[in-house]
């Protein structure tokens, strides 16, 4: 009996293979987008973890003034019962760019640290000493070819990192002190208090790795939000496809029930069937997701490197957990989509006459429910966004607004359609509007998907566009010098300046040091008084005579993210590392920089801080002279070409990083829109099957099929158009939240909003095209339908 029933159920798919494809594809697509985004996130997180592990997840001891720790101080600590291990941390120039160099002492490193795991197969005698091995991941090894055979590849080491013995690091970085001491989690019973033996040293929570995770959190939240959105949109397809399959098999269900199959068995069989389909679709989806992730990962990696300096391996490594979670999400999605249909089957009366569904009544109560939920959503999101605050609050606000808009969409459409019906004159147009309104419940899920996709597109598009406009304008201000050069060493600086003096209009030192400002890593720059800054520097707010006062050392400038994070405005006083204070004279925009920044006059920088990188300079050169100066620098002075960058290349590089950053968003946007289009198609197909009894009377009363078909096409276009029109304000609201809330929380800068109507026109066209294409096929099928099919409506039970 069960076998026969199952056979009867499954035979449906043999007759309608396309429906099977739709269902599986919809589910696979939804799963793929979700799984792909998750894979990218997981890969990035793994890279951070690797880095965090190597860089030390444990507490460290550092100098409170940011100075290096003398080896004697280290010995004093050890001799007083402190189990600490010295770390030298710096950057080394490789043949293919900088690589972070960690000098470690394998003899004192805590046995629990993964770094020691990385050393497992290394002979200590090869590693120790100033000429010892340099260990890197295979990928990073290619960037250090200038070190020849010293480089040894170690699998599993964090990318972009080189491990070397303490003495080797000291030699490479030309420093004798240590940057920090890693505190062994296991300390002996008694030790002399740090204050007594080394008053300048303090214990600090682990740094950089945690910072990296914190900095990139917002980016990943962003991706996850997109993944979720795509998945939600994908669910609409599944809902449509499952609905279609159930709707068309109604007579089969009824017959089976009449033949004595209990409702429970029937539901069980359907659940088994759905489970199998979900597993198949989930598997396909996860594989697709892998390709999506592999396709997007290079861009994501580039983004993270460009924006945060976080290094990600270019290759995907996927855990079994990821595969399983992909399947789970597919099953969950199917369950969500099929629940209402299953309940209907359970309630199905075997011999009930085939009633056309009570659309109008049901839909009104559903819409009322949706409105109530929408109101709740709105309240929640406003509360989270305005009262709760924070990045998560921002995203809740975003999600809540989107959901509110989606849920309110059917009501809004219904009101608009009712208005149109009122205004319409002829009997056919009256029918058209009434009929369109009646289709709403069946189409509303797909239209919500479309609204979400469109709003996301408009919102993200506006955000990215606004950002790009602001960013390029800002680059023009910020990169005022025509050439930027880096001296090979500090010893060379004097010669370099002497060489440049007669050849340039101005030499602007860009000296800097890294330090901790108000509890977080920051950069402190020194600048000289020069019209370049007065004329170009992108100040957001400032006290009067800001440049005159900076010039005489009366204060500092800070970047916007530092100002927002610490709530500092011009006129406030900030505490600087090294225990002094200065007045903030102005705040400037500093897009793309994850860190806080302070600008001081060069003289203040050099008197207050010792460990300054003095090798960078900006050069003002008249336009026509740029190439000549560059050539003489390389050929006459002998500066390596890679130490000279012109303004245009920095700009194009920055824009490139920027575009790559948002390439992922764009790709996900397009995918989401495609999914929404697909959702409309499946919804229309589902409806088409139920449409015949609604259309047949009209046809019998003398309206030819092609006119009915045209009405169907126009209906889809009108619904898409109205949805688009409604999506525009939603999208703009979304953009505003992204620019004024999310960006501020995630990056610390607020961006002005610009409008891009041309993009909207494209999007409108695209959505009409999607709706048109999606409705074309069902409409054509109607137009060419044999009259017998329509006639049968009147004489047979469906």
């Amino acid at each position: 009996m069960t076998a026969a029933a199952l056979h009867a159920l499954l035979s449906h798919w043999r007759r309608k293979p396309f429906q099977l494809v739709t269902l599986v594809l919809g589910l696979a697509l939804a799963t793929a987008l979700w799984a792909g985004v998750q894979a990218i996130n997981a890969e990035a997180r793994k890279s951070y973890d690797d880095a965090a592990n190597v860089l030390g997840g444990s507490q460290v001891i550092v100098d409170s003034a940011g100075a290096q720790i003398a080896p004697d101080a280290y010995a004093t600590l050890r001799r007083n019962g402190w189990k600490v291990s010295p770390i030298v941390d710096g950057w080394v120039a490789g043949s293919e760019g900088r690589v972070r160099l960690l000098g470690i002492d394998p003899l004192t490193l805590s046995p629990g640290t993964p770094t020691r795991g990385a050393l497992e197969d290394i002979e200590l005698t090869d590693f120790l000493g100033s000429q010892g091995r340099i260990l890197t991941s295979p990928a990073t090894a290619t960037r250090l070819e200038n070190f020849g055979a010293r480089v040894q590849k170690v699998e599993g080491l964090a990318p972009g990192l080189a491990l070397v013995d303490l003495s080797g690091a000291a030699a490479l970085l030309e420093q004798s002190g240590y940057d920090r001491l890693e505190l062994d989690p296991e300390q002996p019973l008694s030790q002399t208090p740090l204050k007594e033996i080394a008053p300048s040293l303090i214990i600090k929570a682990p740094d950089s790795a945690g910072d990296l995770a914190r900095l990139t959190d917002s980016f990943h939240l962003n991706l996850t939000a997109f993944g979720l959105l795509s998945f939600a949109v994908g669910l609409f397809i599944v809902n449509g496809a499952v609905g279609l399959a159930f709707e068309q098999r109604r007579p089969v269900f009824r017959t089976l029930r009449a033949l004595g199959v209990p409702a429970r068995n029937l539901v069980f069989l359907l659940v088994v069937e759905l489970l199998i389909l979900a597993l198949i679709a989930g598997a396909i989806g996860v594989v697709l997701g892998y390709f999506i992730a592999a396709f997007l990962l290079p861009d994501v990696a580039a983004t993270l490197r460009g924006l945060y300096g976080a290094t990600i391996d270019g290759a995907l490594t996927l855990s079994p957990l990821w595969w399983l979670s992909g399947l789970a999400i597919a099953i969950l999605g199917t369950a969500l989509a099929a629940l209402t249909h299953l309940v209907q089957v359970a309630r199905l009366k075997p011999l009930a006459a085939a009633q056309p569904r009570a659309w109008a009544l049901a839909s009104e109560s559903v819409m009322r429910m949706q409105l109530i939920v929408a109101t709740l959503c709105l309240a929640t999101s406003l509360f989270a966004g305005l009262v709760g605050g924070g990045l998560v609050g921002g995203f809740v606000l975003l999600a809540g607004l989107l959901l509110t808009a989606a849920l309110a969409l059917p009501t809004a459409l219904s009101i608009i359609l009712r208005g149109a019906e009122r205004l319409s004159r002829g009997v056919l147009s009256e029918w058209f509007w009434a009929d369109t309104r009646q289709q709403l419940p069946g189409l509303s899920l797909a239209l919500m998907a479309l609204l979400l996709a469109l709003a996301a597109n408009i919102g993200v598009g506006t955000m990215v566009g606004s950002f790009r406009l602001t960013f390029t304008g800002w680059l023009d201000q910020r990169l005022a010098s025509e050439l930027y050069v880096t001296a090979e060493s500090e010893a060379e600086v004097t010669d370099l300046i002497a060489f440049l003096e007669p050849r340039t209009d101005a030499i602007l030192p860009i000296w800097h040091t890294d330090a901790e400002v108000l509890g977080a890593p920051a950069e402190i720059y020194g600048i000289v008084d020069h019209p370049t800054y007065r004329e170009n520097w992108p100040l957001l707010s400032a006290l009067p005579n800001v440049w005159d006062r900076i010039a005489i050392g009366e204060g500092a400038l800070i970047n916007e993210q530092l100002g927002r994070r610490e709530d500092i405005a011009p006129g406030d006083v900030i505490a600087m590392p090294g225990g002094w204070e200065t007045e903030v004279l102005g705040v400037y925009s500093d897009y793309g920089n994850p860190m806080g920044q302070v600008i001081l006059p060069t003289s203040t920088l050099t008197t207050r801080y010792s460990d300054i990188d003095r090798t960078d300079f900006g050069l003002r050169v008249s336009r026509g002279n740029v190439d000549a100066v560059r050539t003489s620098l390389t050929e006459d002075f002998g500066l390596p070409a890679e130490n000279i960058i012109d303004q245009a290349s920095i700009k194009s590089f920055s824009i490139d990083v920027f575009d790559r950053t948002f390439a992922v968003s764009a790709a996900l946007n397009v995918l989401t829109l495609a999914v929404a289009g697909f959702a409309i198609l499946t919804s229309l197909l589902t409806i088409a099957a139920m449409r015949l009894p609604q259309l047949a009377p009209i046809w019998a009363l003398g309206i030819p099929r092609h006119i009915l078909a045209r009405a169907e096409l126009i209906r889809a276009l009108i619904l898409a158009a109205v949805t688009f029109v409604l999506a525009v304000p939603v999208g703009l609201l979304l953009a505003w939240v992204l620019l004024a809330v999310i960006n501020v929380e995630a990056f610390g800068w607020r961006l002005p909003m610009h409008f891009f109507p041309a993009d909207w026109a494209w999007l409108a066209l695209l959505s009409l095209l999607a709706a048109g294409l999606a409705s074309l096929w069902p409409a054509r099928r109607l137009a060419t339908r044999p009259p017998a099919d329509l006639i049968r409506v009147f004489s047979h039970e469906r």
Partner: protein
Amino acid sequence: MLLDVQNLSKRFEAVTILDGVSLSLAIGESVALTGESGSGKSTLLHIIAGLEPADGGEVTVDGIALSTLKDAGRARLRRDDIGIVFQQFNLIPSLNIAQNLLFQARLAGRDANLSALAEQLGLSEHLSKYPEQLSGGQQQRVAIGRAIAARPKLVLADEPTGNLDETTGDAVFDLLLQSAKETGAGLLIVTHSERLASRSNRRLHLRQGRIQQ
């Protein structure tokens, strides 16, 4: 003659359903068509209404031969001159009863007195309701009202009482006869019921693809 059917034949694949059917119907006349289930009554009605083509023979409605009309022409003929009542799914679910009643009349561009019509059909209470809120008998009354509101020359009804209980069916049948008489339309009505058939002016019986008087 309002309706003239000559030597009509129809096959579905190899099976011949209608095999030289001829009949005629005068203005104001009501004719009942009976026959066993599957004998081809509905098929005949559909061909007369231009919903389905015939394989042979000719149908002439008010002097116009259907074979001379294209799809659009047949649709226009249906719209303007023929009222149809089916066994079920007669009404347009998205429109309310008032809109349904007037639908064909407005399509054909004719005026109709809604309140009189509703009064006559006993539907005055229900005008703003939607079809699915009405009982089967009420729905059939709306269908009849819609068919005659447009004042067609010919009314075709295919087992209009087939889905109704006896009392309701009798009432609907009488309404149809009476309405046709009042508008002067010719009425061809297919029914199972010998009892109902006897109420019409004339009876035809379809058997083995032919009309038997």
